[in-house]
């Protein structure tokens, strides 16, 4: 029977990030205001009550500030005793008078501090926790936890086994939504729990040697289509996020979208050996008595009560298991192996578009396949590199914790560009007598199946209409566990003229980066190999091309992200090629052309390797 697990997490955040700005409008900043502290604790109590009255246990993540508050500490002890809640420790909620006085900074995101400060803060916070409770926590977290931070915590406090470690697709989009003022750049991570590698939090561990020793959970369970396209903070299992997105009826205060989101996550059990997961983690600032955004307090409160009631109802119906974070870590270790992928066939549940995406994540890659673009790969993160990417003050990436992409259709264009250059995408063009059709324009849907180690995405066939022949083509995409490769088969199911022949051009346009803006491509190398012959191009923005009939491999090496990406092929008349970009189109292209006749198949593999 399928198992749907939920983690409900509350934090007594004595000075919520948002509440001080809102409740304090028109007043000079005072994070020690009694009214603020009292309100924050009241909200925490209300959240706890909402969960408990629906029969749900919680994880209480004590904040640094709350460890100085006797009532908060006492409440945590009581709720642990009465309801079985786990007493945990978060690295969110650092701001308070004591913290400011000690560290002389207004920084509050643990991953942005220098390593020296991270260590000092962790020792301080964990020490204070021990002083108040007499034991160390088994779980912790923040919006993001960099690998160096996790490794340090695990070394100093080996009992920690679970952490909130990223917020899915919170990056440039969130920054822009906040008028370029919210510096949480952490795109490119897993959307569901994973075991982070020691080298890079976002990249799952491939084996025990890489295992950081914790199970990571995402901050919220987010809409895998809406958050990819738009502001992440509107579309998650956070009832007030749904209100922020204005996804409710203003006259009835109904928001079926929240339940659809939870239910679609439940449905993911079908693609993950019967397991699905949700996480709800609402900070007190979101249930501010002053209201938030356009929503009055009563609506904020109602939405949280409704969210808990729905999880409670599912539990009563035997469709949900509530766990604390540390319980979940044990469950996850038992349930999942290192190389077992996380899969999500996800449909639009909000905009009425019938669009469908497939997300795949394993220790070697994170991939998004877009069925509305004929099965094109529109996002690709090469986890295989296990990129060492320290973040925080004193590192090359002070705020930018995102895992770099090779393909990202939103930041570096996809199929459509403004009439010049190319955008990043992995697709194919079918050609006949001078006519050309890109599969990106063939909208379809897909089904998922599992065959041993293979996760198979079978797309519904599409018709490609040329002036004198129609081609019925089917795409099948196979992810073989542990292979670090994506196999794409193009089957010609039917030709209106059985004697006709079409040509196919399988291609990948790529680059690298973490934002919308281009990086320096000068260190890249492109190559096409056939037998003993190898043509190599050092990237100089000269718009050069090279090809080889019968090529064994076409590849690009990207030293800045320690990645080598290649295409290999099996098919009639195959010719491999590489294309350098130019200043207005700072991309590279790898591809294979070939020919196809009725009932034939053309197969390519996209392979990812760690460079050197």
């Amino acid at each position, binding site marked *: 029977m399928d198992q749907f697990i939920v983690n409900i997490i509350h934090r007594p955040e004595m000075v919520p990030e948002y509440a001080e700005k*809102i409740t304090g*409008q*028109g007043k000079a900043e005072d994070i020690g205001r009694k009214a603020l502290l009292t309100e924050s604790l009241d909200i925490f109590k209300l959240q706890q009550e909402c969960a408990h009255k629906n029969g749900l246990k919680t994880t209480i993540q004590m904040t640094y500030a709350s460890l100085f508050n006797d009532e908060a500490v006492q409440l945590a002890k009581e709720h642990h005793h009465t309801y079985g809640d786990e007493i945990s420790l978060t690295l969110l909620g650092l701001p308070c008078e004591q913290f400011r006085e000690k560290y002389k900074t207004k920084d509050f995101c643990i991953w942005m501090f220098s390593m020296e400060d991270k260590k000092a803060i962790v020792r301080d916070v964990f020490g204070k926790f021990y002083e108040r409770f007499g034991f160390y926590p088994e779980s912790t977290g923040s919006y993001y936890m960099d690998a160096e931070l996790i490794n340090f915590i695990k070394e100093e406090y080996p009992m920690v086994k679970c952490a909130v470690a990223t917020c899915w697709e919170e990056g440039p*989009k969130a920054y*822009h*939504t*906040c*008028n370029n003022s919210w510096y949480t750049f952490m795109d490119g991570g897993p959307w569901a729990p994973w075991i982070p590698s020691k080298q890079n939090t976002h990249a799952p561990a491939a084996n025990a040697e890489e295992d950081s020793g914790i199970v990571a959970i995402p901050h919220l369970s987010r809409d895998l289509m809406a958050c990819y396209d*738009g*502001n992440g903070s509107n579309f998650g299992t956070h009832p007030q996020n749904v209100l*922020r997105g*204005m*996804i*409710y*009826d*203003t006259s009835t205060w*109904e928001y*079926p*979208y929240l*339940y*659809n989101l939870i*239910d*679609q996550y439940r*449905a993911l059990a079908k693609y993950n050996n019967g397991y699905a997961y949700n996480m709800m983690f609402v900070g007190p600032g979101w249930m501010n008595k*002053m*209201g*938030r*955004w*356009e*929503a*009055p307090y009563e609506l904020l409160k109602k939405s949280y009560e409704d969210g808990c009631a729905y999880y409670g109802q599912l539990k009563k119906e035997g469709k949900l298991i509530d766990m604390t974070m540390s319980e979940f870590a044990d469950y996850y270790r038992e349930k999942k192996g290192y190389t077992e992928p996380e899969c999500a*066939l*996800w*449909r*639009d*549940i*909000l*905009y*009425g*578009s*019938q669009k*469908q995406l497939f997300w795949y994540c394993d220790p070697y890659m994170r991939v998004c396949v877009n069925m509305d673009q004929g099965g094109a790969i529109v996002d690709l993160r090469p986890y295989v590199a296990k990129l060492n990417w320290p973040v925080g003050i004193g590192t090359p990436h002070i705020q930018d914790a995102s895992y770099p992409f090779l393909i990202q259709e939103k930041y570096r264009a996809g199929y459509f560009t403004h009439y010049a250059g190319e955008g990043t995408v992995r697709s194919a063009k079918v050609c006949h007598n001078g006519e050309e059709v890109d599969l990106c324009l063939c909208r379809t*849907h897909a*089904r998922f199946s599992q065959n041993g180690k293979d996760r198979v995405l079978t797309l519904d066939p599409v018709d490609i209409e040329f002036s004198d022949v129609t081609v019925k083509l089917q795409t099948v995409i196979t992810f073989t566990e542990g292979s670090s490769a994506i196999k794409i088969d193009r089957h010609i199911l039917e030709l209106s003229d059985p004697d006709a022949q079409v040509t196919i051009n399988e291609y990948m346009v790529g680059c690298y980066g973490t934002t919308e803006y281009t990086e320096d491509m000068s260190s890249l190398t492109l190559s096409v190999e056939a037998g003993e012959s190898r043509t190599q191009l050092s990237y100089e923005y000269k718009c050069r091309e090279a090809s080889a009939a019968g090529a064994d491999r076409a590849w690009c090496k990207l030293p800045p992200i320690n990645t080598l990406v290649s295409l290999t092929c099996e098919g009639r008349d195959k010719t491999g090629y590489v294309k350098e970009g130019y200043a207005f189109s700072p991309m590279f292209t790898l591809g294979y052309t070939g020919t196809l006749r009725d009932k034939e198949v053309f197969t390519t593999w996209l392979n990812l390797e760690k460079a050197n």
Partner: protein
Amino acid sequence: MAQSGKGKLNFRCPSCFMRDLDIDMFYDKDKKEYYCIRCQYTGTEKDVLAKNEIVRFRYRDMMRRFTDFEDFSEG
């Protein structure tokens, strides 16, 4: 003219919201209107609420309850 402040709720600019920008507006009590400091939108509370209904145009399935996530036959 006195300084502006927040209104009774922190209404966001509906025009900026449509381009995925969350900008709290300020309230000009002399003109009895909200205004955006990022773009040129101004409006009364009534107008803001009306525009907030319009921004929901893109949520065509906002009130639909899904029971099957692989069935596209219902349109």
